[in-house]
C-alpha cells in the first residue's frame, strides 16, 4: 500500500493539514480524517450533491475530489457557513421556511445556495432550480427549499 500524503489546506478560514491515502476522496478526508461530518455522503459518485463544498470559490461534489487535490486550496464546508453563533441568512431561511425534513441533504443545499447567492444575489425561480439541480432532496419536493432561497435572497439584499 502506498504511503500517506501530507496535505496543507485552508478549511473554513483556518489552516488545516492532514495525512491521507492517495485513494481517499476529499469527502472521506473531511469526514473520517478531519472529523467534519457535516458534509454528507449520499452516493459517492457525484450524483446527489449531499457532499457539496466550496473549493477556491466554486462548488464541487467532494466525493469526486481526491484528498490530495485539496493541497493549497481554500475550502468552505457547512461548518463554516454560520458567522460564529449567528446563523447565515440562508440557514435561518431554511429553518423559517421548513425547507428541511430529514435534513441529510441540507448541508449540500445550503453550501450550494450560498454560492448561488454570492454570485447572483437576485436569482429567478428558474435560476435557483437550475443551480440546485445537482442537489437531490427526496423529502421536500423542493418547494420549500426554493422558497427558502428566495427568502434568503431578499434578506441578504436588505442586510
Amino acid at each position, binding site marked *: 500500500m502506498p504511503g500517506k500524503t501530507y496535505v496543507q489546506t485552508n478549511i473554513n478560514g483556518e489552516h488545516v493539514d492532514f495525512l491521507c491515502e492517495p485513494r481517499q476522496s476529499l469527502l472521506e478526508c473531511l469526514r473520517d480524517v478531519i472529523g467534519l461530518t457535516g458534509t*454528507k455522503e449520499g452516493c*459517492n459518485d457525484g450524483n446527489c450533491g449531499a457532499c457539496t463544498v466550496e473549493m477556491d470559490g466554486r462548488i464541487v461534489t467532494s466525493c469526486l475530489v481526491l484528498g490530495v487535490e485539496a493541497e493549497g486550496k481554500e475550502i468552505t464546508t457547512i461548518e463554516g457557513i454560520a458567522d460564529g453563533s449567528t*446563523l447565515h441568512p440562508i440557514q435561518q431561511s431554511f429553518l423559517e421556511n421548513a425547507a428541511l425534513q430529514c435534513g441529510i441533504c441540507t448541508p449540500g443545499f445550503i453550501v450550494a445556495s450560498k454560492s448561488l447567492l454570492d454570485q447572483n444575489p437576485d436569482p429567478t425561480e428558474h435560476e435557483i432550480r437550475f443551480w*440546485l*439541480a445537482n442537489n437531490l*432532496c*427526496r*423529502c421536500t419536493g423542493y418547494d420549500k427549499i426554493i422558497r427558502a432561497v428566495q427568502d434568503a435572497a431578499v434578506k441578504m439584499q436588505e442586510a
Partner: protein
Amino acid sequence: MATTRDYEPNVVLSNQDYNVVGTRPLRPDGADKVTGRALYGADFAAAGLLSGSVLRSPHAHARIKSIDTSKAEALDGVRAVVTSADFPQGGEGPVVWQRDNVLASDKALYRGHAIAAVAAASPHIAEEAVSLIDVDYEVLTPVTDVQSSMKGDAPILHDSLMTDELGEKADKASNVASHFQHVKGDVKAGFKEADVVIEREFTTKTVHQGYIEPQAATALWNNDGRLHIWCSTQGSFAARDACAKILDIPVSQIRVVPLEIGGGFGGKIDVYLEPVAALLSKKTGTPVKLVMSRADVLQGTGPTPGSYAKIKIGAKKDGTITAAHAYLAMEAGAYPGSPVGAGAMCVLAPYDLENALVDGYDVVVNKPKTAAYRAPGAPNAAFAGEQVIDEVAKAIGMDPIDFRMKNAAKEGTRQVHGPTFPRVGYEEVLEAMKSHPHYNAPLDGPNQGRGVAVGFWFNIGFDSACNIAVNADGTVTLQEGSTDIGGTRASIAMQAAEVLTLPYEKVHPTVVDTDTIGFTAVTGGSRTTFATGWAAYEAAQDVRTKMIDRAAQIWEVDADTVELEDAVFKSKSDPELSMTFAELAGQLGRSGGGITGTAAVSPSGVGGAFAGNIVDVEVDPETGKTEILRFTVVQDAGKAIHPSYVEGQMQGGAVQGIGWALNEEYYMSDSGTMDNVSLLDYRMPTSLDLPMIDTVIVEVANPGHPYGVRGVGEAPIIPPTPAIANAIENAIGTRLFALPMNPAAVAKAVMDK
C-alpha cells in the same frame, strides 16, 4: 413555465384554532441540521471503531455451495469475517427469512443479497478483504417479475413455500405465497346492472424509496454481554426486537440508540446491517460500523414492488357504480410479504360500493425483499383503479370529480374488507378540489392535459410512550421514542405545550434510546404525530394534574378550584391566589419534590386520510417527454399540528409520486440484475423537473384524537401516478397502462394511436 399566481399556493381550511397547535414554530433540531452538527447514522464515532464491508451476491438466483474466507482473514488489518453460519441457527418461516435476508445461508435470492461481512481497520481494507472471499455458487435461473413468477413453470425460489390459497395450504412448492379475497355483495349481479363496464390491465415496475442517507449502523457487543447499537432507523424498538430475534437473545440485552435519520419512507424499518455489525463486534470485542454504498442501497434494501393489476368497474348512466373487481398481484421480492394486503384495502376505499371483489396475490421473485414505501401497495393499486374510474366517468359523460362525489365513501360506508368508515373528510377533499382555482383555470396549448385522482390510506395507531419533566425555570423536557424524520419533535412538543398552556419554546423534546422510554412503535404508518403526539398529550395531562394538585396543596385549597390558563394557576375560591407555571415550577423542590408525567398509549381511534391531486401536464409529442406544469395536492389532515411540515409531507409525497410516474424504475437485465445502480441512472426528480407544489390542507377532525389529528405522511404518494396518467390521456388522447410513463413509453403511445 411557472404559472402566474392569483391565489394562495398553500391554504389551510381550518376547523378549530388553538394557541400552539396549528402554528408554525421553528423545529427544535433545526440549528443542528443547518450547521452540519446533527449526527446521522454514518457520522457516529467511537474509540477503537472498526469499519466493515459486506460481500453481496453477483447472481440473482444461486445456490451457495461453499464460502472460503481464509484469504480475507489473512489480509493485514482484517479483524473478523462472518457468514450466516455465525448466527444462531434453527427456527422456521419468517424468522429464518429475516435472518437469511440479512446474510444468505443456502441460497442467494437476488443480486446484492448479503453473503458475508468483514471488519477491518479501515473501510478500504474491509472492501479489499471482501473481494478476497471465495464463494462457490451454483447459478440458477432467476425470475424477476410477478407475472412470470406466477406461471407454473417458473423457477422456484423456496422449496418449502406452498401457496396459502384462500386459507387452505397447497401441497406443491410455488412462488405464490398467498391468494386472498375480500368480497362484498354480488359482483356478477352488479356488473349486469351496469350500462358501462370497463376492464383494463396495468403493470408497474420496482421503484426505490430513494432516501438520500444510505443505511448505517454501529454495534458494540460489550464485555458485559450487552449489545449497543447506534443506527439510522425508523424505529429503535423495531430494530431492537428484530436483532433480538435474529441473534436469539432477549430484547433487554440490546440497547438501540437512534441517530438522526436521513430519510426512510418505510425503507428504514427493516434491519439489514445491525445484526451483522453485532456479529462482527462480538467476534472482535470492539465497535464495528457498517455503512452501505448507494449500489448496496439500491440492490440490497427493500424497494417497493413491481406489480400487475386488472381492474373492472361498471356504472349506470346516472353515475352510480354498480360493481368493481380489483385483481392485484405484487412482488414480495425474495421472501413473502409484499404490500398487496394494504393495496387491497385501499384500491376501492374511496367508493361506496354495493358489490365489490378484491383478489390479492403475494408473489416471491428474485429481487430484494420489498420493504414499506409510503402507503405501501396503495400507489400501485391506485395507478390502476383511478385510471379506470377516470375512463368510466368519461364514458358516461360525467366530470371525474362529480363522478367520485356521487360514489364517495363517507361515515358509515362499509369498506370491501370489512371495517366501516368513521368520520372521514373525503367529500370535503373533493369539494376543495372542485372549487380550487387550479381546477377551473383554462389550459393553454394543444398538448396540455389535466388529470385528477384520489387516494386513501388507513394510517395506524400502535404503542407510543412519552415522559415529561418540569424544570425549576418553568420549562419542561419531553422524552419520546419516535425517531424524527420530518419535524415530529416539533409536532409532538406542540401538543404537550397546548395542554400545559406553555409557549412552544418552553418544551424541549428529545428522541431517546430504548433504555430510556417505554416501547414506541416505528415512525411509519403516518402514526407519529397521531400516536406519539397523543402520548405527549397524556403525559402533559399527567403533569398538569400534578401541578394543579401541588398548587392546591400550597394554597391549602381544593384541587377542583384550581385552573391552569395561559401558563398561570388560579384558584376559583380566592381571586388573590395566582401563580405562574414558572413560579410553581420554582418551588416544586420545597413543596414535596419534582414533578414528572408519563404516558404509554395505544390509541385505537385512528383516522384514515384521503388525498387528491389536480395536475396539468404538457407532452412533447415528438420526444414523449412529459412536463409537469402545475400540481395541486388536497388532503384531509384532520388537524395540521404544524402546517408547514404537513405541507412538506404533501409536497414530498407528490414529488416521489411524480418520479414514480415519469421516470423511476429498476431496469432488470436478462440475468436478473439491476442495470441502473446509481442515482444518475435511477433518476429521481430534481428541482429543475418540477413546478412549485401547491397544497390545500382540509381539516375534518378525527374524532379519535384530542386535537383531531389523522396521519399525513403516506396518502400524498397515492394519487400522483394515476392523476398524471389521466392528465397525459387528456393531453394526447390515449392512455398509458404501464409505469413509468417515460419519454419512450409516451412517444410510443403517441405513435401507436
